[in-house]
């Protein structure tokens, strides 16, 4: 169809006639420069600079060198200083070439984006890593609970867990042995709930979760697995 050219400001008939006369060109230049300034402000807002090294050292459990290495890697992949969700999904998907990691990456993104502003800055990133790699068992379990609790209401329901489980199974892709079936995630969720939900009320609270995990040897051991990743 025919698209009328958009004009930012509504002009009256007089203004339109004035346009036809060549000498009135000067007036429009100022309006244009106005919008340029606004554009620039918007652009600079996207660039993000993290807090100083000392502050981050104080807030996290990484030492200076480790923070340097982390920041270099982070800034290399995201020169603007923040990761938005699409970039995050791209990066995470590269580690799982056989499956579709985007759903799980979405949940992970929400877990890292603690202030829920739609982007993960370096501070969010390094705080999350500090918990995961250098935190106590309690903190790690807390983080995991936060990841599973999609709507952050303090309870994990079966539907939330099913979503997470499906996302994890999606990362495996199609070519697995044994062949993935429709009900596999659901069964896994049922086993999980059987284990975790002590009072059988259909939801898991943070205390049930932490209690149960601390009593499970496998889980305790696997939590220590990534101690020396950095």
């Amino acid at each position, binding site marked *: 169809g025919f698209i009328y050219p958009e004009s930012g400001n509504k002009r009256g008939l007089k203004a339109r006639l004035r346009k036809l006369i060549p000498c009135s060109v000067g007036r429009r230049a100022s309006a244009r420069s106005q919008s340029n300034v606004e554009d620039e402000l918007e652009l600079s807002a996207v660039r993000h600079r993290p807090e100083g090294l000392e502050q981050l050292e104080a807030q996290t459990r990484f030492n200076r060198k480790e923070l340097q290495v982390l920041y270099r890697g982070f800034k290399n992949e995201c020169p603007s200083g923040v990761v938005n969700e699409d970039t995050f999904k791209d990066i995470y998907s590269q580690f799982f070439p056989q499956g579709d990691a985007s759903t799980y990456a979405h949940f992970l993104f929400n877990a890292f984006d603690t202030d829920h502003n739609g982007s993960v800055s370096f501070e969010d990133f390094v705080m999350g890593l500090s918990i995961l790699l250098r935190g106590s068992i309690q903190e790690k379990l807390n983080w995991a609970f936060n990841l599973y609790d999609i709507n952050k209401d303090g309870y994990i329901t079966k539907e939330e867990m099913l979503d997470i489980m499906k996302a994890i199974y999606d990362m495996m892709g199609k070519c697995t042995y044994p062949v993935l079936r429709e009900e*596999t995630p659901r069964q896994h969720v049922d086993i999980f709930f059987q284990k975790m939900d002590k009072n059988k009320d259909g939801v898991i609270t943070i205390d049930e979760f932490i209690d149960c995990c601390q009593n499970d040897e*496998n889980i305790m051991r696997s939590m220590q697995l990534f101690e020396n990743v950095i």
Partner: protein
Amino acid sequence: MAAGVAAWLPFARAAAIGWMPVANLPMPAAPPEKNKRQDELIVLNVSGRRFQTWRNTLDRYPDTLLGSSEKEFFYDEETKEYFFDRDPDVFRSILNFYRTGKLHYPRYECISSYDEELAFFGIIPEIIGDCCYEEYKDRKRENAERLMDDQEDSKDSKLPNMTFRETMWRAFENPHTSTMALVFYYVTGFFIAVSVITNVVETVPCGSSPNQKDVPCGERYTVAFFCMDTACVMIFTVEYLMRLFAAPSRYRFMRSVMSIIDVVAILPYYIGLVMTNNEDVSGAFVTLRVFRVFRIFKFSRHSQGLRILGYTLKSCASELGFLLFSLTMAIIIFATVMFYAEKGSTSSKFTSIPASFWYTIVTMTTLGYGDMVPKTIAGKIFGSICSLSGVLVIALPVPVIVSNFSRIYHQNQRADKRRAQKVQKARLARMRISKTGSSTAFLHSKRNGLLNEALDLTGSTEDEFRQRKATSLLESQHHHLLHCLEKTTNHEFVNEHLYEQNCLEGALQSYTSRSPSLSSSGGLTGTCCSRRSRQKSAPLPNAAMPPGSSRSLQELSAIHIHRSDRPPLSTSRSSLNMMPDEAMRLNCKSSQITTAIISIPTPPGTTPDGDGHGPPSPSIQITASSNVVKVSAL
């Protein structure tokens, strides 16, 4: 794995903690980080210019020269740096590739020197970023053409083993290949010209005898003209038949534009021969003669420019259409206006709106014959507006057509688009191969890992070192991550072959009702179980069971599964994901299945393992093989 992403591997591994509470099985041990050294700066001295970078940066691409141990050959002990005697300018782009993950092609570089540097440093050109890839390919194509042109000039002799038909076709298409072809080319050209001139002269009134009025030459010298026409048509017919005979694909040749022009050029003559000199049909016959003028289009075989013009018009069809449409609109508008403006005046030529069309067209194209002129004042005003707008409307689409022509003309001087498409496919294929390398690398290392466990069980230690493939620390960490995922979900990654095979087994097992304990009847049953080793892609029907197996030795009826080519993995360059919908295209129904029943010896008493759907524990399978790890259970 892409460059900067390697920096995110620690993050991905840390995030794996999210799977831990969900997993039911114990996780595998993390790979040992032997001699984990602090990141250090290394100096690369390229012909005197020193570049410095972190060692980790170079380690991102372990299959290139700088990323592997190959660079140790260039290490200079005294100066403690790596010295390369290469071009420092090109090296800048190469080092930037390690830093940013994107390879750029600088425009000022010579294409062949750039290629050489890439080859030296072990980088495939296909990963050049999209921003520079077109430029790179264009330059490469130009270079290749230049080389080919040089070669062609030196290649005069005919290829010895071309059939007569091929020789003829080649002669028709390239008249410069042999003198016979050149002669033929000029002869046909001459006869086309003769035929066209004959048609023209036929209608000129020549020589008036006093007792007759002026007659056109055609009627005066009927016989002469008829002979001339016959000769031309015969030559054209012979030429057409010869082309038809020599064409590699006759159907395609008959559909091509040039052959249609040929046919249309000679058909009127034959129709004229067939038809009798009837008064009723002679009118139609005269009309047919008009088609003889199409012979002039045969010249387009002789002229490159004419062909390009035709192609341009074809490709600018939309612009031409727009021109026509806007002109029609304007004509109707102005014709209506002029008609009503001139309605009042007496003896006006504008008798109806269609009659005004002629005026409008003549005015808008600024022809201005003057056979119809407006007389009223209103008519004159609108007439002037009409002529002014005509100039505008026609001037608008014309530059588009002109630029199209110029573009196509220049394009025609370079290679065909077909060649470009072929190159694009090859490029995607190579990138796919390097990408699948990453996922198959995991499966390979898993196999090696399991193999090592097997060897541990059997107690041999020397083979361990031989067979443990050297994987970089990065790779081993990535594989550990994938291994954790497997443990969490209790499923294993397999490659496509085995996946399809499993699918098929599952499908067939539900299809044929066979009892788990195979035939105590010695009869042949059309069941299938095909067993393949991971290494071989072609099935071995009688693959010998590795010795020392305690499993049942049912020998197979083999099903040869033919399927069409593997569907391509994802074509996006930036993600290594295999999209699930593409994975689904590997549907389990193969395109052909032929069953060949070889033999089924009586099986030993043990019943085979279940349906193979139970979760396998890798340890059981390992005891069954020494060289091969079977993943599909029989």
